[in-house]
């Protein structure tokens, strides 16, 4: 009998249920906070009992989508993953998710743990959960008020990884900073990356949001032969000779079909693995590639990967189509310069002008309180495609100003700080049968999703 553990788990779940009943949002953090107070080593105790061990996914962009893809592939392979599907990815959120998957006797109803974790929390999670596989998608500037500078974040992650004794580490070869994170560890490192020669452009097209442009070893500017997006590319250092590592899991061919999704051929399997995804954009192709590579390292079957990827439907707001009043609404979480630029590129790919856009910028702690980053996003690219831009969020005025300086005439923008009113304005702006593109920061996505639930267009995410 473990009375302390039973108390921790059941009290956490009681609080979680109460907060869902009261519709205080998803109740994803408080239960874990309480459980850890009662039993500080609860997560590692629970995870230790799982036969399938633990998988962690981290990175600035794509960790939620990548881990959700892996979860779906695991389920189709007959596993029961214990997973923080809604992306509460600090220690409290992970603990809440663990408690929620426990029965009354405080044992996990599952056989493998799969968590997306905040990049700054990775060292602590690694130490606690001793994962069999860690996946790192990319590292971009994001919420500098919270994470600090990129280089020091990489150093913390690196130090955390060096503390681990065994397991697989799956890294993005195209991100010059991420590619170095296996250095000095005893983990088995493998890489995924883009190998389709038709993707990307030459280095002259590098965006303002590109971050890791210098050799991490000698400080020399890296030579980029190709740039895929942000600082993802094929690169090398002319001074010390370091270059992009050999790729174990390449995307051999990629065809992007705008907001409709993409098709890719992934190497690392005999004859390659052909995948089709409804997730839009190059950044999502990377997520699919990472998930497929992770599945390979976990020993899962190719046909389960295909099914998992094709059958994948997204969770709230990370590229999700919904219907409202005869309009198609695409909700895309857009939370930092690199991510936002990719979303803009995807949304403008079909070259249809006259789009109705809804932009919402919040500055709560989870978004980052500093909104300066919007000046690093190439909103200029969005202007020629805009019919009307409805602007919302706690910093709507900053966003409106950004659009003004991007060249959008003021008569084409409309400020509605309330999410519900903003959404209804977007519905009025788009013609019947037309599309609305909602690009929103993290808490603004939650607020919009809540407004849509109240208007009856979607269910609350806590009901999923």
């Amino acid at each position, binding site marked *: 009998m473990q009375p302390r553990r039973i108390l921790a788990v059941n009290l956490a779940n009681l609080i979680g249920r109460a907060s869902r009943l009261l519709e205080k949002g998803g109740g994803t953090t408080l239960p874990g906070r309480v459980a850890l107070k009662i039993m500080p080593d609860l997560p590692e105790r629970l995870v230790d009992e799982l036969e399938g061990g633990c998988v962690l996914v981290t990175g600035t962009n794509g960790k939620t989508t990548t881990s959700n893809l892996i979860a779906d592939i695991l389920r189709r392979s007959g596993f029961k993953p214990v997973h923080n599907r809604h992306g509460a990815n600090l220690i409290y959120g992970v603990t809440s998710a663990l408690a929620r998957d426990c029965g009354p006797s405080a044992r996990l109803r599952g056989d493998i743990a799969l968590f997306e974790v905040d990049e700054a929390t990775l060292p602590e999670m690694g130490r606690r959960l001793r994962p069999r596989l860690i996946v790192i998608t990319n590292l971009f500037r994001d919420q500098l008020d919270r994470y600090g*500078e990129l280089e020091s974040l990489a150093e913390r992650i690196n130090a955390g990884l060096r503390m681990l004794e065994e397991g697989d580490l799956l890294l993005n070869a195209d991100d010059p900073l991420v590619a170095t994170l296996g250095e000095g560890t005893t983990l088995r490192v493998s890489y995924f990356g883009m190998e389709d020669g038709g993707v990307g452009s030459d280095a002259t097209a590098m965006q303002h949001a590109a971050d890791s442009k210098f050799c991490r070893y000698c400080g020399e500017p890296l030579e980029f032969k190709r740039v895929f997006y942000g600082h993802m590319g094929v690169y090398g250092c002319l001074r010390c000779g370091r270059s992009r590592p050999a790729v174990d899991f390449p995307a051999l061919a990629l065809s992007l079909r705008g907001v409709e999704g993409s098709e890719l051929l992934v190497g690392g399997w005999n004859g390659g693995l052909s995948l089709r995804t409804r997730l839009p954009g190059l950044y999502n192709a990377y997520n699919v590639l990472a998930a497929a590579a992770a599945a390979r390292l976990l020993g899962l079957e190719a046909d389960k990967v295909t099914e998992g990827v094709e059958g994948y439907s997204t969770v709230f707001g990370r590229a999700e189509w919904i219907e409202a009043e005869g309009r198609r609404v695409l909700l895309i979480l857009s939370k930092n310069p690199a991510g936002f630029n990719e979303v803009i590129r995807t949304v403008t790919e079909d070259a249809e002008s006259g789009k109705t856009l809804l932009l919402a910028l919040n*500055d709560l702690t989870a978004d980052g309180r500093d909104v300066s980053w919007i*000046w690093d996003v190439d909103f200029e690219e969005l202007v020629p495609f805009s019919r009307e831009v409805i602007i919302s969020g706690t910093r709507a005025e900053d966003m409106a100003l950004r659009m003004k300086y991007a060249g959008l005439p003021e008569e084409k923008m409309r400020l509605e700080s309330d999410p519900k009113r903003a959404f209804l304005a977007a519905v009025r702006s788009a013609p019947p049968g037309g599309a609305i593109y909602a690009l929103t920061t993290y808490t603004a996505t939650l607020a919009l999703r809540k407004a849509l639930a109240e208007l009856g267009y979607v269910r609350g995410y806590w009901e999923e």
Partner: protein
Amino acid sequence: MGRMVLRICHLYPELMNIYGDRGNIIALKRRCEWRGIEAEISLLSLEDKPDPRLYDLFFIGGGQDREQEMVCHDLQKVKGEALREAHAAGACFLAICGGYQLLGHYFRTWKGEVLPGIGIFDAWTVGGETRFIGNVVAEWEDGGGRRTLVGFENHSGRTRLGPHSRPLARVKVGHGNNGEDGWEGCRCGNAFGTYLHGSLLPKNPWLADEIIRLALSRRYGEVELEHLDDSLEERAHAAAVRRAAGKRGG
């Protein structure tokens, strides 16, 4: 007189741009264009030597530690002399955060390492143990009526001003130069230094115009800038003030 041209030199654009500081360049460019003034922007990075007589306005933003070291080195070896010469001849400067620090006398890090500056500002900076992070509201002290500056600071350096500098503004919310004397920013001749990101100029359009006016006057004498409709800028400014007030103590 023909069309006026404002010649801007954007220093280390790819190295010193960590918190959207290029928004300042966007603001300067647009506010010139809207008035029929041509803004010519030259990007100068490592190893490029500026012609001190060519530019009316130099801009430098903030950077990460490693980038800042590279820039420090380049300022000492390649650009420092020319920039000091331009400053002495009346060229305008706007330097944000890390750029502000490197244009002072020196930056001594928390670990005791010293990065020499180029002394355009009579100011020096010492690294602190904690970072000052948050919204800032400050009251302008540099003449021209009572105005406020809004922005977002994120720095560990504590900057002190020498007798040849004067502070730009008195901090109402936030920390400013060092969190102790209540001052934010610095002015030496036509050089402005500040910790404020945000970006600074779009939300403080009167400062953008003051800088444009000063920079143009070098080549064209006293110029009167055409009035622009800044109602959206003023709304964003007011919203930032409200947001900062709401966060106070929280």
